[in-house]
């Protein structure tokens, strides 16, 4: 399968989506509702990062599994 068929959607999803996520994350951390001294807020920050990596990994591994079948 061609590179553009396999990886272009992935790069677009986590490139464009990643920029939007990062803007949202920076806005959230800079808002008065987020206070780094609060332990729960620090946990939420880590969870937000984890969620992004979690989905990027699921989609990435899914593509690799499909490619393995094609090989």
């Amino acid at each position, binding site marked *: 399968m061609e590179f553009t*068929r396999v990886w272009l959607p992935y790069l*677009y*999803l986590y490139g464009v989506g990643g920029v939007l996520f990062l803007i949202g994350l920076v806005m*959230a951390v800079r*808002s008065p509702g*987020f206070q780094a001294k609060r332990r*729960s807020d620090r946990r939420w920050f880590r969870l937000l990062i984890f*969620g992004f990596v979690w989905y990027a990994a*699921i989609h990435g591994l899914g593509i690799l599994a499909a490619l393995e079948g094609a090989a």
Partner: protein
Amino acid sequence: MMSFAAMLGWLPVLQDHGADGQSALAADAAAQAGTSPVFWIILIGYFIGVLGFGSYFARYNRTTQDFFFGGRRFSWWLITMSIVATGVGSHSFIKYSGKGFGHGFSSTMAYMNDWFFMPLFMFGWLPIIYFMQVRSIPEYFERRFNRGVRILATIALLIYMIGYIGIGFLTMTKTLLPVLEPQGWSQAQIIWVVAAVAGVYITFGGQTAVIFTDLLQGFILLIAGMVLFLLGLDFLGGFDVFWNALPAEFKLPLADYNKPADFNFVGIFWQDAIAGSIGFLFMNQGLIMRFMACRSVNEGRKAAAFNVLFLLPLSALAVSGAGWIAKAISVTNPEIISPDSAPDSVFTLMASVVASPAGFGFFVAAVTAALMSTVDTLINAVAAVVINDIYRPLVPHEKDRHYLNVAMVVSAVATLLGVGGAFLMDRIGDLYDAHGFFHATATPPLVTAIFLGIFWRRFTTAGAVSVFFIGTGLMLLAVKLPHELIGPFSHGIPTPEGEMPFKYVRALYNMVVCFGVGIGVSLFTQPKESKTLEGLTMWTVESARRFFKGGEPNDRPGERMELAWKVNDALPPGTISVDEEAAKTLAADPGDLVYLSDRRWWLGGLRSAHAKVHGATGPKGVVEIATDVEQAGHFLRQYGLRVEKEF
């Protein structure tokens, strides 16, 4: 060794037919199931069971606050499971099985792209609606802008929700059609019967009943989807047969970048991951009411995070699995399920192939009853908007019971309008396309106005009004001139002759014009005074906490306690009193908010209430509560209470 299906007692209907090589075997199986008494006993029994379950919990409704919001009392796990049923509503099984059959694992895309806006939801919108006690989207618009914008938002929101109710009714009808049509039922008759059942239920239920019915159905739907998938694997002869029957491209989790026109990655990214995700998290009135039913903002964050991280991927498998299995069957046994089967019929056909009448009855019942999860939430939300945004301002100062009665009438009217919507939607065609087009067109003005309102202090009332008028006008112009206006945003998506062009990627054009108009007009008009925006934007959310408490929040960390309780008639309404030592442990001062709940955690907050600390003069080891707090919490004498400070 017994097969998985045999162990469950759900041997396939197909075995009665024998594989006689007829291409309509699956359709025959569906029609045959409709003549089986077992099928009808299971179907009707399931509906009665669900109705009874919801009605039992309806007795916890004492006020319109309970009817619409469940009384702000529930734990995250209870809310997240009830959200699942709404997210895996009946249209999901039909729609995604159809796309899974045609395009493979990429049918899961819409379920696995909701994380991008989670930071803004968790630290922006959720604290605002919770602490400012925003009961509806239009109410937010009035507080953020003015009454005129509220009216515009109310109209847009009601159109959006009634359209969704119509899609729900239509999809359920398409689920039952392969079974009932051979018995002489018409599509119109099925729509009316379905609407009557949903309307009766919601009219007597309310949000508490909806939450608990959806909790039950959330479990059942996930399990039904998984079991159906496993039965399908068993029918095929195991996972290896299934996996090897599918083409490699079919297994990719993301669709092709910009083709075909009816299912491409980039169009669905803008329609679903962007417009759809913002719509789901920020303007879904049904979802907002669920989060308002959480006992705290942190519980709401937990519910949202757990739902998106873990339950949505499981839901994607549950709703698409039937389509993937059907695809594998169409490769290995095309005489059973034809490769040319209509996408909207795939779920029902596949279920009829792999299950007996009893099993098939269960699957059809689970999916059709799930219509209520989607539709009853929306009908309840329509009633909330009409009562709080239209009726109460016109007819103020009536007793609560009066508004509850009017809410029931509104629910019935919304059901009738939903039936009208179903007949209209039926003229658009394929369910996935109709839903995608509806979403790409109906959500951008509201999404833009909410989004800019929350995250940009400089966004003006004139900007919001222009989004609704000029933005919508430019969107309608693109319906007339799609190639000229949407073409530059289309990423090279082809436009087949005779089909509506750019069904999904028009969401990008619609968002660009709405955001462009809103930002452009705001830059040239006068914003509201900062003071009037306190608590209504992400940048003033700390004011919302002060508003919620009615004073300065007390952020000193305290511990949760278990205490005996008794009623003290002398306490002012809505207050409690604890002893000095308990007040220290809780880190609570007079005037602080506390949450009281039955000590049995598994009730999920069903018996719980909020109150303010009146003083630290109570007897040792006992929390004294005012009479109204006892009534609100439905507390039982024999069980102690968990007490914790909020914030």
